[in-house]
């Protein structure tokens, strides 16, 4: 059953999620076992894709228009590897996190409730054991189901199936935010749920138009039948608008800081690192492989412009924040801007490959860096008993490991060499310069400098000498996981060749014929011409391929 490798990334986490829901004490064990198992599965899939080119799998044995098809190409494999790396790190971190927060809220710890009248503290400081265990315990099934639906989304070849996966992600995300049970978490979860559901309904309306026009739900068949008439353009607008809401691009980003800022740290890491990328992944897939068309260039420029605005606005807001997690959340708004530049850059076929592979690699490195940053900030916050940046003063003395983890994650976010972020930024920069869009290049560099602004605002406080109250000790698990994840994000810069090789399979753009990639093609020696040829029938449109 060679094709098991394409179903396993969906099957294992979802079934484990169900088992974790039912199993009381076994939840942690199941979750960690699956998190560890996911990495080899992802690598297996990547290896299979490398070996055999894009994979197709008909669920239920029915061929495309009737049944649902799973499709795995280079980009999918890379995304699933990204997801499994981040989920493993977050899972291990959550072990320490929930065990620590529960130990902190023992009856013995009678920290008086906040004096504010708004927070009714009738139940005093303690809640019954069952509630806490169940809450801490609910993280595991939720994160497993989130992982399963994420892999389902990356692998799905059916636009209605994408709708259900997006809904799954939304509900899991709201559940995770709800775990925090603080006032702003509840408000953020409500706002996020309403907006995400409306976004999904926009998407579904677009799907209904496409279905009634072309009679198929499989996006590869859709790509073949797609013509660029008025109704299809309306469908594109609806699809993209719905997904923009969920991907939190600049004007529609207002729900993100509160949602990611108030969720418990492992949850914010999952949300910011992975869930945002799912919606963007769908846009990327649709834009370049289902309805690529020269006349979309103008819309691409608009999205690119919004991305640039997001970079500047997000970074400026991040610098202004007083609370740690809001700072990192606003940095997500900025980094999402980087992703959307691809629509402006890739409209010029000569640089399309650089832009596209740069964006894919940016998703990978940003996921690791952002999750590491959130985990590190979470540890610092709990140690310093406070969420403000001032509370972190002098943290470098007490918790050097966590501060260095945040610093390394910051290196990834700032795109300084040798991190993965740098490689992605380099590819995007090259694409921008080659297609003479110097404006975008300048915005990218400005984004990097502003990122230094907000990262070092935190590090500056951390390195300051302080005589304040000694901070609480952080469990070893919560110190070393962010560091390892940050090291992975930095290490991605050094091993960029292999993932980019993986990305070439089933990519909508062949690597441009410019000098340096020519060197690569003879040395690659892979049967990718065959892969590209066979796939050319399916994926590439006349317009998109030089």
């Amino acid at each position, binding site marked *: 059953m060679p094709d098991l490798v394409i179903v396993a990334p969906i099957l294992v986490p979802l079934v484990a999620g169900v088992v974790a829901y039912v199993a009381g004490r076994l939840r942690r064990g199941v979750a960690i076992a699956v998190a560890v198992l996911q990495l080899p599965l992802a690598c297996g899939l990547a290896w299979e894709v490398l070996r055999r080119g894009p994979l197709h799998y008909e669920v239920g044995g029915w061929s495309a228009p009737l049944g649902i098809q799973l499709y795995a190409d280079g980009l999918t494999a890379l995304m699933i590897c990204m997801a499994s790396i981040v989920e493993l790190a977050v899972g291990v971190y959550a072990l320490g996190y929930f065990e620590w*927060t529960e130990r*902190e*809220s023992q009856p013995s*710890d009678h920290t008086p409730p*906040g*004096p*504010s009248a*708004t*927070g*009714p503290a009738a*139940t*005093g400081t*303690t809640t019954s054991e069952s509630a806490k265990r169940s809450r801490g315990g609910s993280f595991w099934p939720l994160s497993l189901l989130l992982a399963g639906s994420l892999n389902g989304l990356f692998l799905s070849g059916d636009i209605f199936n994408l709708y259900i996966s997006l*809904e799954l992600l*939304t509900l899991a995300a*709201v559940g995770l935010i709800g775990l*925090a*049970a*603080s*006032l*702003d*978490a*509840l*408000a*953020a979860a*409500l*706002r996020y*749920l*309403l*907006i995400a*559901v*409306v976004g999904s*309904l*926009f998407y*579904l*309306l677009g799907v*209904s*138009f496409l*279905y009634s026009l072309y009679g198929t739900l499989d996006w590869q068949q859709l790509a073949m039948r797609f013509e660029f008439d*008025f109704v299809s*353009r309306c469908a594109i*607008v609806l699809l993209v608008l719905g997904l*923009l*809401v969920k991907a939190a691009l*600049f004007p*529609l980003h*207002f729900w993100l*800081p509160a949602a990611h800022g108030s969720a418990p740290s492992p949850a914010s890491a999952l949300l910011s690192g992975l869930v945002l990328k799912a919606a963007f992944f769908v846009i990327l897939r649709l834009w370049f492989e289902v309805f690529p068309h020269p*006349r*979309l260039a103008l819309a691409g420029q608009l999205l690119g412009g919004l991305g640039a605005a997001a970079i500047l606005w997000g970074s400026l*807001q991040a610098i*202004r924040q*007083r*609370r740690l997690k*809001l700072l990192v959340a606003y940095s997500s708004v900025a980094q999402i801007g980087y992703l959307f530049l691809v629509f402006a850059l890739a409209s010029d076929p000569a640089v399309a490959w650089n832009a596209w592979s740069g964006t894919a690699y940016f998703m990978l490195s940003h996921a690791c860096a952002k999750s590491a940053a959130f985990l590190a900030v979470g540890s610092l916050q*709990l140690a310093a*008993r*406070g*969420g*403000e940046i001032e509370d972190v003063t002098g943290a470098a003395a007490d918790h050097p490991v966590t501060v260095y983890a945040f610093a390394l994650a910051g290196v990834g976010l700032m795109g300084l060499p040798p991190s993965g972020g740098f490689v992605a930024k380099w590819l995007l920069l090259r694409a921008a310069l080659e297609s003479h869009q110097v404006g975008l290049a300048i915005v990218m560099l400005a984004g990097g400098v502003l990122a230094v602004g907000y990262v070092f605002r935190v590090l500056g406080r951390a390195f300051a000498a302080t005589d304040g109250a000694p901070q609480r000790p952080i469990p070893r698990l919560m110190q070393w996981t962010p560091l390892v994840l940050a090291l992975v994000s930095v290490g991605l810069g050094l091993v960029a060749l292999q993932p980019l090789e993986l990305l070439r399979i089933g990519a909508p753009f062949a690597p441009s014929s410019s000098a340096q990639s020519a060197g690569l093609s003879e040395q690659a020696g892979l049967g990718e011409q065959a892969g590209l040829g066979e796939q050319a029938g399916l994926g590439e449109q006349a317009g998109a391929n030089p």
Partner: protein
Amino acid sequence: MTTGTLYALCGLGLFGIGLGGIILRTHLLHKIIATNVISSGVFLVLVALADRTRGGRPDPVPHAMVLTGIVVAISATALALGLLRRFYRETGRCRLPEPGSLAPGSLAPGSLERWSPERRSEGGDAEKGNAEKGNGEKGNAEKGNAEKGNAEKGNAEKGNGGEASGGKGDGCRTW
């Protein structure tokens, strides 16, 4: 003008009414009802458009899609209502506060991160809803037609902010 087209237009009408409702109404229960109206509208469009198959028998696939959609809608509604109940129990309000107007991280009992920063910082967060002031005037016309959906989604938050700042603890004063 077939039945399908008529009902599709009716579905779009519902979609519009629901979208307007979710943006303009401030009470969360209204917003949740509006979400259901939008989903009914979209489902109506989905089935109506697919009703025009050859050979007279309706196309079962959209029906299956709508069935799935209804179940997804009920799940989302149930979760939203659970959130609303919990939000009401914690704050005594049933309107979304302006993003950031809530005392930052003021903690309900039993919350995970056992700190209450507002003990340290007095006023509410400084960035009082400026996130959407920026995008109010960023009306970006997508190619072809005016995808204004996102622009007004932005300034809607400004809209409901005014109402929400009503006194706390005076129950769900909703008129």
